[in-house]
């Protein structure tokens, strides 16, 4: 199916409004018990496209497109829509703020193998929540920056908006602190404790079967810059003990984001010098010094989530709208540094040897877990690196092949067989143990079930970067097939129809599963994200082939010359159909010349059409001059 972001997002919006907005109030209701992540996802389904796609903007009621206002009819007339969104945002913040402290708990998204998670565990801040919060707050702040409330007698919106902005800013600052304190450096030395981790890591990167000594030396060399930075940059607050470890010749390391604030993470003691009215805290928020529980080990899935969130902080939109305050800019710099290091680290690891470790699917993490999901995560980082133009088209071509095999293995381009183990990748999803959480109760589990929409998003993102038609076409084909897969997973019945996820038909063809009736905001938001990515990809100009341009030039040369000849032999007073056709031909040629550089294939088509017209006249002329 052709991916059509505008139409498909509007379809989703219609369903979101139908299932969430009832009797004039917004209901936070999804498949899992409502929590800070799920509710943010529900809201982002609406707000993310509205702030990322110009044509779907909701912040200027007068300029809303008609299809948009019609889709959101239930929210009220155009000028009411921004006010509704403000009310929903206020409600969200009310729900997830306790005593002035932003709340980042994962509740319904968490489970445990044995026993029930404790209350304390359910309230634990998670990187997934920090990252999503960053995106939500930035989207909302940008929205409020543009929206002009009605100038009313007895203005109430102005004050409400100011208050909301301050609260959003506090939440944004807190989630940035959360991200900062969840960054993990994991040195792997030769000690017994690290033996297994070390072996797993070396096995993964050593694709060309070299001796471990050589591999370690190479790794050290390739990662020298990252290592030096970690040891020397004081702002990274790496402990002295860690520096000593990293300094040893044989030490390997991993960096990225843990699942939450790292156990023993240094407190962030930024001076709260921003006024509360402008989004500063009255006192230092707890998140700056709250003890962390997560093992100091990067998880691929949270690393990718964190990178995505930080991407939003660094985006041109954030800069253009000037959304960050001073405190946040400082945090943003600190996060950007970690972003760069992590990005480079994983990009180097993914392509460390030949064949690439990434090509050896499934990826095995240093704790010995293998999964296609991890391969997808590493590819995501690689594609991101491509965006910074530090990987080239050859790299991308290889990544496309990785995506294609992931799609096959993930049963997106292959059908599901009986008792197919690959289905578990989607339902219940890749299971991850949140190491360190056992200190507060049973060890927590997180299931990442977004393999398919993430693959979709990454394909579309990569397609925008590719400058080779072949790989771009392959990526678009794969994206469309993945979209087809997602379409069959839409909920069909109940008010949530049109939302995700009901995988029964495609993933469990041999079972009898009852139809799903409640939306998974987790999945729906991922699809929306993918569609927003698609809209960015589609905005790019088509690739320009030099070959077709050369051909167009030849064609136009001939057409131009023939036209000149014909004009020479045409009576200058002629106004017959012949002169009409000549004018038409001339117009085509000049149009073709105008667009030759940007759209050579179209220019070629116009040139061909001009030639055909010219030949009609030539044939007639020849026929007549055969003699009387």
């Amino acid at each position, binding site marked *: 199916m052709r991916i059509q972001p505008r139409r498909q997002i509007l379809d989703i919006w219609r369903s979101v409004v139908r299932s969430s907005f009832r009797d004039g109030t917004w209901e936070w209701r999804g498949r899992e018990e409502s929590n800070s992540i799920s509710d943010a996802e529900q809201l982002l389904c609406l707000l993310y496209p509205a702030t990322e796609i110009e044509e779907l903007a909701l912040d200027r*009621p*007068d*300029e809303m497109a008609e299809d948009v206002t019609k889709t959101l009819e239930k929210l009220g007339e*155009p*000028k009411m829509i921004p006010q509704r969104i403000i009310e929903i945002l206020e409600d969200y913040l009310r729900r997830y703020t306790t005593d002035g402290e932003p709340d980042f708990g994962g509740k319904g998204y968490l489970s445990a193998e044995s026993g029930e998670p404790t209350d304390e565990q359910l309230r634990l801040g998670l990187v997934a929540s920090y990252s999503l919060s960053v995106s939500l707050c930035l989207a909302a702040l940008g929205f409020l920056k543009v929206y002009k409330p009605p100038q*009313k*007698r007895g203005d109430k919106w102005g004050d409400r908006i100011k208050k909301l902005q301050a609260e959003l800013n506090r939440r944004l600052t807190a989630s940035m602190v959360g991200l900062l304190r969840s960054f993990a450096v994991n040195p792997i030395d030769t000690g017994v404790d690290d033996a297994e981790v070390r072996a797993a890591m070396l096995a993964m990167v050593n694709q060309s079967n070299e001796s471990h000594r050589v591999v370690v030396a190479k790794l050290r060399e390739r990662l020298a810059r990252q290592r030096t930075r970690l040891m020397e940059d004081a702002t990274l607050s790496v402990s002295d003990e860690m520096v000593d470890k990293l300094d040893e010749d044989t030490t390997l390391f991993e960096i990225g984001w843990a699942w939450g604030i790292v156990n023993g993470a240094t407190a962030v003691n930024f001076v709260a010098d921003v006024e509360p009215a402008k989004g500063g805290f009255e006192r230092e928020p707890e998140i700056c010094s709250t003890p962390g529980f997560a093992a100091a080990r990067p998880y691929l899935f949270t690393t990718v989530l964190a990178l995505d969130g930080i991407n939003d902080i660094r985006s041109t939109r954030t800069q253009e709208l000037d959304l960050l305050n001073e405190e946040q800019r400082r945090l943003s710099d600190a996060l950007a540094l970690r972003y760069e290091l992590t990005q480079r680290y994983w990009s180097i690891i993914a392509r460390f040897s030949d064949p690439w470790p990434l090509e050896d699917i499934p990826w095995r993490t240093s704790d010995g877990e293998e999964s296609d999901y991890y391969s997808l995560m590493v590819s995501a980082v690689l594609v991101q690196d491509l965006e910074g133009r530090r990987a080239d088209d050859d790299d991308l071509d290889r990544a496309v092949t990785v995506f294609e095999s992931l799609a096959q293995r993930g049963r997106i381009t292959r059908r599901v067989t009986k008792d197919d183990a690959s289905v578990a990748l989607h339902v219940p999803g890749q299971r991850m143990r949140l190491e360190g959480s056992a200190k507060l109760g049973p060890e927590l589990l997180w299931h990442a079930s977004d393999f398919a929409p993430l693959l979709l998003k990454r394909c579309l993102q990569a397609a925008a970067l590719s400058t080779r038609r072949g790989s771009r076409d392959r990526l678009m084909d794969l994206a469309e097939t993945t979209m087809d897969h997602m379409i069959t997973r839409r909920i069909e019945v109940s008010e949530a129809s049109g939302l995700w996820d009901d995988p029964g038909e495609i993933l469990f063809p041999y079972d009898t599963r009852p139809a799903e009736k409640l939306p998974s905001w987790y999945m729906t938001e991922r699809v929306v994200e993918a569609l927003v990515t698609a809209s960015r990809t589609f905005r790019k100009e088509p690739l320009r082939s030099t070959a077709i341009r050369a051909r167009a030039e030849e064609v136009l040369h001939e057409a131009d010359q023939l036209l000149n000849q014909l004009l020479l032999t045409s009576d200058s007073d002629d106004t017959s159909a012949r002169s009409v056709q000549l004018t038409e031909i001339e117009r085509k040629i000049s149009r073709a010349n105008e667009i030759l550089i940007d759209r050579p294939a179209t220019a070629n088509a116009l040139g061909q059409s001009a030639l055909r017209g010219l030949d009609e006249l030539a044939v007639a002329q020849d026929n007549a001059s055969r003699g009387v």
Partner: protein
Amino acid sequence: MLVFAASDKGGTGRSVTSCNVAFHLAQRHDVAYLDFDFGSPTAGAIFDITRAERGIEQEGMHSYFTDGLADPRRLDVWTSTSRPDLRGANIRAGRLTFFPGEIGGAEFGMTDERVDRCAELLTQLDHEYEVVLVDLSAGRSTALHMALAATALSKMRSVTCRWLVFHRWTRQHIVAAHGLVYGKHGILEVGKISGHDQKDLQEDIRFVRVAVPLLKEHNPAQSAPQATWLLAYDDELRKLAVDRRLGQSRVLGTTPVEPILQYREQLITESDVAAKIANATTIKGFRSLADRLVDDEVWEGA
């Protein structure tokens, strides 16, 4: 509630739209329709009232203002109309009373006394009817000035007034409508001089876009480039409208192009639609205008 219908240009469909809105309002409310188009009173024809087709001979709106007539003539539309489908049998909740102008009447000047009489009439009718719709003539007319001056009087302060500015969906009409409201000697400027709070007055003004083509509907006679051009130009007009402060949030509603109305100004009723003579979208447009006209939420801050 008083509703004033104004337009910068003639031929905008101000009267025919107002009459239709009055007709729909009268299904649920008591409505009075006052023909203040002194130079060319034609509302009688739209209601199909034969004896008042171009105004009545005497005792109309003119005489009220110029001869000191105490009670201008009232015509009950339900009984005076010659349209059979509007007469008799249908049980309706509201009255629809027409206050016609006079044949051969002309525009007259504005005096303090006339302003006072105007205020007196409007106040009285506001008590008698739920909606009083006043059809002002085109441009910066005496009727418009008089209405602005009368409603500015402190004795009328408690009466709800709403102003509608009708314009067609073309560049020239948008510019003209903008001028009528925001321009020199426009409603806001004159209103201010008359004693209105300019900001409050502005909030009581909404625009009505008349005869807007439904570009997104299938039209077999149209070529793809033509449709593309129209859609793109429509977008430009929308931007122009926003730029001229005629944007969506200040619009009360839109009526589509209705072939019947291009030939004959009349009420469009359900029976016209049932007979497949008129488009259903036309009635929908009028009905929505009527609904929104009395919906307070619509009038809260633009």
